[in-house]
């Protein structure tokens, strides 16, 4: 690893960091607009044109609210909880390949923070650390309702992480690698695959796995219909009952960062990542009949792919919000039953089917 590569990587990490924060910021705005539209309302339109400065106004409100520490609370842990939730949410975006490589001269640059061959494990490891943020927050509040809420949230996250991991194993069986970049490249149509059509995405090979993953993603990000950690009616406010000001803001904000990350992971794992149909045809057409250099044509493809990946991510984010304003919340026992008695067995069956299909050579 040379120094220019490191410099490039730090730039990419910085950009990814900024972009995830920006998208999460505007997720709060988008959520309100989408909620309003689905309920035949207009939504925020006071702050700035079309209410676009609304996240800013929200931030000012959050920062200027009173900082409150409950009596007898463990102050250090109380502050550490939301920080941990935020850090883990942001860390997991580092390994996501946001694009193919750009080449300038002899140097090829990956549009990815860290290219590691354990990318998927990294995401899962970091995401599962996020449970500590919830758990510490509930524990440090010195409030029995917060603690109960935190236990519920933690057990929900752990339960659904099992099914999520199992549904992912089927993808790994097909791809044979944990590297997110490799998985993405395998979904392009240039390699030698059974299905040589333009849609070589994993969703075609793993429809059941995708549905399980999607449901688990909802539970992991604490979104409706699985937003039981925020149980206003039963446990006052769940694990963040005692939180106020920007510490609460960080918890809520990390949820949006998580949505962004999980949308990106789903796009990469199941929807071809930065690949798009006819990309090689477009490149070859540009290179042959339009007289472009192959490298610059490839760079254009990369840029387009990155844009389309963000399109896919935004579509998923929209889907998350669409679901939120459609479905009512599950009851806690229903949630646990769905996770343990339906999703985990389904994921195991999915593994068996995938294994069978690989053994008999239907899919590679």
């Amino acid at each position: 690893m040379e120094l220019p590569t490191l410099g490039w990587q730090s730039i990419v990490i910085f950009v990814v960091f900024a972009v995830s924060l920006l998208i999460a910021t505007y997720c709060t705005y988008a959520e309100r607009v989408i909620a309003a539209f689905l309920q035949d309302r207009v939504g925020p339109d006071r702050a700035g044109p079309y209410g676009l400065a609304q996240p800013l106004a929200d931030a000012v409100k959050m920062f200027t609210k009173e900082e409150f520490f409950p009596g007898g609370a463990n102050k250090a842990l109380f502050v550490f909880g939301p920080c941990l939730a935020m850090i883990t949410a942001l860390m997991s975006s580092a390994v996501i390949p946001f694009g193919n490589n750009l080449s300038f001269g002899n140097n090829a640059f990956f549009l990815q923070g860290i290219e590691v061959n354990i990318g998927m494990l990294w995401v899962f490891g970091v995401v599962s650390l996020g449970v500590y943020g919830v758990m510490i927050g509930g524990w440090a509040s010195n409030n029995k309702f917060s603690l109960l809420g935190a236990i519920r949230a933690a057990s929900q996250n752990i339960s659904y992480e099992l099914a999520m991991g199992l549904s992912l194993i089927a993808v790994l069986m097909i791809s044979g690698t944990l590297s997110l970049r490799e998985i993405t490249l395998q979904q392009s149509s240039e390699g030698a695959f059974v299905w040589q059509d333009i849609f070589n995405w994993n969703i075609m090979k793993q429809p059941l796995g995708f549905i399980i993953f999607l449901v688990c993603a909802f539970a992991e990000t604490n979104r409706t219909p699985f937003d039981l950690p925020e149980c206003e009616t039963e446990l006052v406010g769940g694990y963040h009952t005692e939180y106020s000001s920007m510490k609460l803001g960080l918890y809520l904000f990390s949820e949006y960062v998580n949505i962004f990350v999980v949308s990106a992971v789903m796009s990469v794992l199941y929807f071809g990542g930065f690949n798009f149909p006819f990309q090689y045809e477009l490149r070859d057409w540009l290179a042959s009949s339009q007289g472009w250099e192959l490298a610059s044509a490839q760079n254009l493809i990369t840029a387009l792919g990155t844009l389309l990946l963000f399109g896919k991510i935004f579509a998923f984010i929209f889907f998350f919000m669409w679901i939120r304003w459609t479905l009512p919340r599950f009851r806690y026992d229903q949630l646990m039953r769905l996770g343990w008695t339906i999703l985990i067995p389904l994921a195991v069956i999915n593994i068996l089917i995938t294994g069978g299909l690989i053994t008999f050579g239907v899919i590679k």
Partner: protein
Amino acid sequence: MQPLTNRSKKLEKKPMTLAERAYLPAIFQGLSITMRHFFMKKATVRYPEEVRPFSPIFRGLHVLKRDEQGRERCTACGLCAVACPAEAITMVAGERKKGEEGLYREEKYAISYEVNMLRCIFCGLCEEACPKAAVYLQADKMAPPRFERDEFIYGKDRLVEPVDPSKRSERGIQLTPEQAEALRNKMVQQPA
């Protein structure tokens, strides 16, 4: 059992079909419903910029009308106060002096005329009772919210149709007869 009405339905609890148990079709149905709402016309009225029109029969804030020559129509007959079921209207009558013909239409007029907006139920009986077509409930103006209770007692300064809007005073004050007399003298000195 004999059904009480012909609308009663027999409730049956069938076991759910596979599609119902799978839950996902119902989710897609719900998603399609909310998606349709996404493109529907919004019901929102952007209030300060966009004002929803009042109903044509809306009864709002009272006004004491003047006639074509700018004279007050009210003769302080008290019929509105009698008709008022909430007893919100009080008035003090006075005799028109010489030189005041330009101010008051009849020989008798209201030195003070007060409507207590905390009592008023906006029924409109006062305007029905008025023989001189003096009191009306405006169709386009509501009694605004205020901070103090005495500010809800609307005196003549806020009820009488202003000749010139800049001559409106800021708050209505409940007048004692002496104050009403003082007000009358003041108005004689500077005819509106």
